[in-house]
């Protein structure tokens, strides 16, 4: 099991204070900067490992960055704190985006990222809660995180806790039936402490979601299952922050975050092959240059 990087936790706390105290423009700048820095780390990590799901990592990073930098009530030094908010990355193949985000919060030293998928590394290709602090459940096969999150939300309610539960889903992942079972249960039970965020990048491994097994009209589907659902720009940090910070209500809430797969790297954006293609050294350098300019 990896352990906390305490100085990094302090830096994360400072960023969080700065974001929450800032005006909208500064918030946008700070969050954008943090997300792009994480993107550069993702590209570097995957390039070095020769393995990973770069497209979906890049599309989800604004969502994860905003959650960890300004929304979730968590303490990286106490990953087992009972009343922490729960974040479940159901699209577990985008583990590098989660690992990078957790490392930036100080859950574990960023140096560990260089071991990603290496022999006996704690950082498996899909997250393992027994090895990585901050991971709530082991995901990888799709359609697993959402039922877990529903159970976590029921637990929070049974315990009369203020904790909230956030589950981040891929859009292609919604083709798994277990998600609709979970959606039905959450709607039926009016789990207002549960928020689902769909990383709606419109691409899955082999093709566009709408060419493969159509999801649209997506928001009405969620609403018909008893959810509040709204579409937002999944790359607008301020919009994400406001939507994710909205207080719990009497219904579970879904944010359909419209995103671009491969976001931030011109030659990867919205291209299906970058689902899990690995950037060469040259490509990684070009990508990082774009992300850090």
């Amino acid at each position, binding site marked *: 099991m990896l352990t906390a990087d305490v100085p990094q936790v302090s830096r994360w706390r400072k960023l969080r204070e700065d974001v929450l105290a800032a005006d909208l423009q500064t918030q946008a700048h700070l969050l954008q900067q943090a997300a792009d820095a994480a993107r550069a780390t993702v590209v570097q990590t995957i390039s070095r490992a020769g393995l990973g799901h770069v497209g979906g990592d890049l599309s989800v990073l604004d969502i994860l960055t905003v959650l960890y930098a300004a929304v979730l009530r968590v303490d990286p030094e106490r990953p087992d704190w009972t009343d922490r908010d729960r974040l479940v990355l159901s699209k577990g193949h985008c583990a590098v985006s989660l690992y990078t985000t957790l490392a930036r919060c100080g859950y574990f030293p960023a140096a560990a990222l260089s071991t990603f998928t290496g022999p006996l590394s704690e950082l498996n290709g899909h997250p393992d809660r027994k090895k990585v602090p901050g991971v709530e459940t082991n995901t990888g096969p799709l359609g697993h995180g959402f039922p877990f999150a529903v159970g*976590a939300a029921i637990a929070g309610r049974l315990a009369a806790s203020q904790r909230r539960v956030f589950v981040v889903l891929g859009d292609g992942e919604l083709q798994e039936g277990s998600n609709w079972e979970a959606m039905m249960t959450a709607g039926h039970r009016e789990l207002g402490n549960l928020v689902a965020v769909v990383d709606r990048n419109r691409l899955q491994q082999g093709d566009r979601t709408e060419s493969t097994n159509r999801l649209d009209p997506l928001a009405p589907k969620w609403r018909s299952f008893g959810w509040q659902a709204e579409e937002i720009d999944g790359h607008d940090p301020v919009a994400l922050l406001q939507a994710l910070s909205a207080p719990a209500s009497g219904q579970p809430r879904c944010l359909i975050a419209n995103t671009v797969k491969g976001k931030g790297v011109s030659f990867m954006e919205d291209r299906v092959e970058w689902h899990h293609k690995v950037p060469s050294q040259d490509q990684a350098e070009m990508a990082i240059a774009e992300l850090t300019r």
Partner: protein
Amino acid sequence: MTAGTVAAAPTFDCRIAFVEELRALARDDERIVAVCNDSVGSSNLGGFATEFPDRLINVGIAEQNMVGVAAGLAGGGYVPFVCAAAPFLTGRALEQVKADLAYSNAHVVLCGMSPGMAYGELGPTHHSIEDLAWMRALANLWVIVPADPAQTRRAVRWAAGDVGPVYLRVGRFKVPAVTPDGTPFDVGRASRLLDGTDVTVIAIGTMVSRALDAAALLRAEGVSVRVLNMATVQPLDTAAVLAAAQQTRGIVTVEEATVRGGLGAAVAEYVVQFHPVPMRLLGVPGVFAPTGSTEFLLEYFGLTVEGIATAVRELAAERD
């Protein structure tokens, strides 16, 4: 009952003991919750629902969701007992059992109700003869098959402790009490219900009483049979298996399940590597069972006192 058994012995549906113990446990420990798939009736959870309405989480007919929800409840500090018919719990939600419970090490107790051929007349879709093989293939999962009400109670209470993920097979087919008073079982250890020197019978669940009856029958024929109740199928008590292989001439395993991958396979995997002796694996021989009552199907597959005795005689006859 088959000829040769003590016809007067009272028999019990282990689901009753199961739910009584679960309710008793829930009164003392508010972390205990029940999760089910519209199976309030078939799991006998009605009383639990009345007593703890908020702590019975019925997700409807959705087994994958049910197991995932249970994992989330465990992550939120609760101890979920997932109660559902064994074939659907283990088959439909197999990947959730693997990833969300066993691999994630989530402390959830899966209670497979009406296993084996309890739903005999309903046909192979509703038979749960593969559950032991499926569950046993997973790392980090206890597989417990109580043989009578006392063992069932003990298993429920044990499973509520901090033991990690558990599959508990809760029988519906009525069985007599077979465990000695006061010592229902040590989880993880075989219990030697009868000692013997010629052949060992290793049985679980509904088959334990039949193994004891077969041993009684054979004693009259001069064959000395050791009977082990292997209520913990995983991890297997290999010391008890090794002792059986060393101290008797052969081993018969008996289970109300397919012989592919369950108790018999577990014993054979060990025996063949560390102390080969002749074996017979009694169970469903790798086929889908026909339709019929549970009693009929047990007879059909020779899972009877006479069937066990025949297998023992064969091994006893192999003495050098």
